[in-house]
């Protein structure tokens, strides 16, 4: 019996893996376990290898995953080829015995470089490269316990049992995996059934058939292997948890924060957020959120600004390629002091890059894109809980300082499914800032922060050109100085309020300081929890305004400072140097687009302490 389990479940994109994860995660959570799963997939709709890499914990809500896994569940042969090396010694493997003669040659979806690496590796370990040879190797050399199931014959059984077609039955492979996993982990039948019923709400027949199949496999597995992976009694306090991915939690935050207009143009990994909001758009008689699919991102940002001018809390969501088309609109919002929120999910760049993989390489892009100078607020969130708070806060800041806010997220956060406590809603502050309140209104009078009027209340003017207090174009040099200073001062004022958004975790004075932001938070906190050395972590939740004083004082205290980031060369080091002059000299980076695993991070930090300046993390297929 253990307290935590890392597992990978894999299969071809579109073959039911998503269902497996949803049902299993529900089952884990409803039995009181914490759950976190990263999702990896190609830029492909069907056929390429995809997987969920999860951690289940009986004692807490996981913050990171390990590269080494205790359980590998394969829907197909490619999963085994791709992940066999990730299994810990003594781990568990679930696979389809009918694939035992398969070699990688027959699997077209495998990319060449992996193919070559496998070839080499099979030579090294001296196997012929069939699935069966691989399984044999794992058993012999890695003490892996193998759950051997003949998927086709199990499916044939159910086909007969319910008199369904073979093509329909083939969609039940996911339930074989569910049965095997829940068997090994000793989950209670009700909890699993719950998950299935929930998933197939309204489709009772399908639910029934799946339940039947899961139970059958579950029993088969228990009979032969028992439940060796049963987690020690779940200790989570909450009676109720939210199971959300990052897109969803942001959607919830935006709705809670009073957003009533969201424009978007579809793009990975942002589009699911808008889809989720649209699903929850209506408040019955109370109103609704208008979700607007535009013709492109130029229209997404500009329609968002238009909506904001009417006093509606408005936002848009995108990733790098879409943001590129929003830059001009961003500047317009800047000079016109329009409160809008751009939720930006980073993915691998440059250009189309790695559209379904994660990255943190866009920090300088959001801080400096656009010509001229204007205040912009850049919030960054490190996990789902922070993301919820920031999604609400973003609107408050946007309206208080009358300026665009970019909320920087990433693909990892967007897609990671996690159990979190239900957020406190009722206390959530809504601050609409200084509002219009008089005759003879001038939109840009009395800075730095002017009274904000809404189109539809009084007459006002806006223009992207430099303008006077009334919003009419002015080229006068003294007016220019006045208005430019007015705008820039707002960032200074915001900076005074927001100096707390650099957060230090760790002992009073740590010898080694890790600096990071965004989705690396979990792995870093877990790593420093485990490491014997004296480590602290400086976590940014905001880069503009930059909490320079606090950051400088923290940086000074440590001897070794290490930036950890998903980028080629840490952007956080660039910003810190730019703002404080402090040059962070060590770095752990990952730019394969795969998540940073707790264990590989620990290894790299050990190397850093031993003298390395730069560690490039590589794990994850």
């Amino acid at each position, binding site marked *: 019996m253990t307290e935590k389990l890392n597992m990978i479940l894999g299969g071809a994109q579109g073959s039911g893996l998503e269902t497996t994860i949803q049902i299993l995660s529900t089952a884990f959570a409803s039995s009181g376990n914490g759950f976190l799963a990263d999702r990896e997939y190609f830029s492909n709709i069907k056929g390429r290898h995809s997987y969920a890499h999860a951690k289940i914990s009986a004692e807490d809500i996981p913050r990171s995953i390990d590269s080494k896994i205790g359980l590998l569940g394969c829907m197909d042969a490619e999963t085994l080829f791709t992940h066999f090396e990730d299994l810990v010694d003594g781990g568990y493997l679930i696979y389809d015995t009918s694939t035992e003669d398969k070699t990688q040659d027959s699997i077209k979806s495998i990319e060449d470089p992996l193919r070559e690496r496998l070839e080499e590796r099979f030579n090294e370990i001296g196997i012929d490269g069939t699935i069966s040879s691989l399984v044999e190797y794992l058993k012999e050399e890695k003490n892996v316990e193998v759950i051997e199931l003949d998927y086709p014959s199990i499916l044939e059984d159910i086909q007969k049992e319910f008199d369904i077609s073979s093509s329909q039955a083939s969609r039940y492979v996911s339930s074989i995996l569910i049965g095997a996993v829940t068997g090994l982990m000793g989950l209670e039948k009700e909890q699993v059934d*719950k998950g299935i019923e929930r998933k197939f709400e309204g489709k009772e027949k399908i639910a029934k058939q799946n339940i039947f199949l899961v139970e059958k496999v579950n029993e088969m597995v228990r009979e032969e292997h028992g439940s060796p992976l049963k987690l020690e009694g779940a200790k989570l306090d909450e009676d109720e948890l939210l199971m959300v991915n990052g897109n969803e939690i942001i959607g919830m935050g935006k709705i809670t924060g*009073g957003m009533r207009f969201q424009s978007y143009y579809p793009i990975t990994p942002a589009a699911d957020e808008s889809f989720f909001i649209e699903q929850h758009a209506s408040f019955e008689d109370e109103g609704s959120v208008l979700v*607007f699919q535009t*013709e492109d991102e130029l229209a997404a940002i500009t329609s968002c600004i238009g*909506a904001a*001018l009417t006093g509606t809390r408005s936002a848009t969501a995108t990733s790098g390629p879409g943001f590129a088309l929003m830059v001009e609109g961003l500047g317009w919002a800047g000079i016109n002091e329009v409160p809008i929120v751009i939720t930006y999910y980073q993915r691998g760049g440059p250009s189309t890059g790695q559209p379904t993989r994660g990255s943190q390489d866009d920090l300088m892009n959001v801080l400096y894109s656009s010509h001229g100078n204007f205040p912009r607020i850049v919030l960054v969130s490190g996990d789902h809980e922070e993301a919820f708070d920031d999604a609400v806060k973003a609107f408050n800041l946007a309206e208080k300082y009358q300026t665009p806010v970019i909320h920087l997220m990433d693909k990892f956060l967007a897609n990671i499914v996690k159990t979190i406590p239900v957020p406190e*809603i009722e206390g959530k502050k809504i601050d609409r800032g200084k509002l219009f309140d008089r005759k003879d209104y001038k939109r840009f009078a009395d800075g730095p922060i002017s009274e904000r009027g*809404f189109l539809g209340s009084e*007459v006002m003017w806006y223009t992207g050109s430099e303008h006077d207090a009334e919003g*009419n174009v002015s080229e006068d040099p003294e007016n220019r100085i006045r208005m430019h200073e007015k705008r820039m001062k707002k960032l200074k004022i915001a900076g005074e309020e927001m100096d707390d958004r650099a957060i230090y975790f760790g002992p009073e004075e740590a010898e080694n300081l890790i600096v990071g932001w965004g989705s690396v938070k979990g792995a870093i906190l877990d790593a420093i929890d485990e490491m014997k050395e004296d480590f602290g972590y400086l976590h940014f939740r905001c880069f503009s305004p930059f909490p320079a004083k606090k950051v400088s004082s923290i940086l000074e205290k440590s001897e070794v400072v290490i930036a950890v980031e998903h980028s080629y060369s840490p952007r956080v080091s660039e910003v810190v140097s730019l703002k404080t002059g402090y040059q962070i000299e060590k770095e752990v980076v990952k730019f394969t687009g795969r998540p940073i695993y707790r264990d590989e991070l620990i290894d790299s930090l050990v190397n850093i302490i031993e003298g390395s300046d730069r560690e490039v993390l590589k794990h994850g297929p």
Partner: protein
Amino acid sequence: MARDYGTENWIDWCPGCGNFGIVSSVYRAFSELEVEPENTVVVSGIGCSGKMPHFIDVNGVHTLHGRAIPFATGIKMADPKLKVVVNGGDGDLLGIGAGHFVALGRRNLDVLVMMHDNRVYGLTKGQASPTLPRDTKTKALNTPSIQDAVEPLALALTSGYTHVARSFAMDSDHLKESIKDGMEHEGAAFLNILQPCVTYNDIHTSEYFNERIDKLEDWDPEDIDPTEAMDRSRIDEEIPIGLFYRDTETPTFEERIAEQLPSYQEKAPAEQDIEKNGKTILDQETFRSKFKGNLIRKEK
């Protein structure tokens, strides 16, 4: 007493510019319609034409080159009680902004688009605009233009605008009436305004237009096929002006939204309260029930 809708800003178009005709017809139309300044928004792009809002005493939003339509779209969608008029140049709407121009037609949002069609890029010193016919060499060009002109009315008809008209900047009455018609239409209306640019377009001058203009008569713009309107509106020897097409059947975007979000009609985004005493209006229970799909109860 009727307002005059002028502002105190000096109008800095070139003396004789056709835009003067346009802005004064706007004054007259607004005056006759008695539009409410605070509930009317003139949205413009960038160009000589883009300066319009500063000369009209209603809300003015002078946006980005090519983006007047999506700005206007956001404004109108969020607050449908506003009357929204777009003023753009030919470059603005049919060059850099052509994609949005098409998209507005597909939506039939209740916005009037007035295109200041001078066939050149005025404010950047006279380059060819998308409506300049091929082989034409206006004053500031090194060589005659080698791109074909786009036909603005045909494009509007193809895109789904439900009210499609042409007028002339120097025919104040015709233009004023055309503006009024366009504003009264419910749905996406397009008004192409032939506009002399005295500084850069030495070919399509007032005289040029005056000689060719042919006012639509005996033409019923309703219950016809867009292609019929297209044929009728085509510019040959003569330049027909008037209302070529009107369709009052196709639902507006606002109506389509309201069908899916019934509260939209009464509580458009701009009309909703989102806070009570500085707190969110959502309470814990509503949150739980709204997002019940994501809630998981621990089973004892």
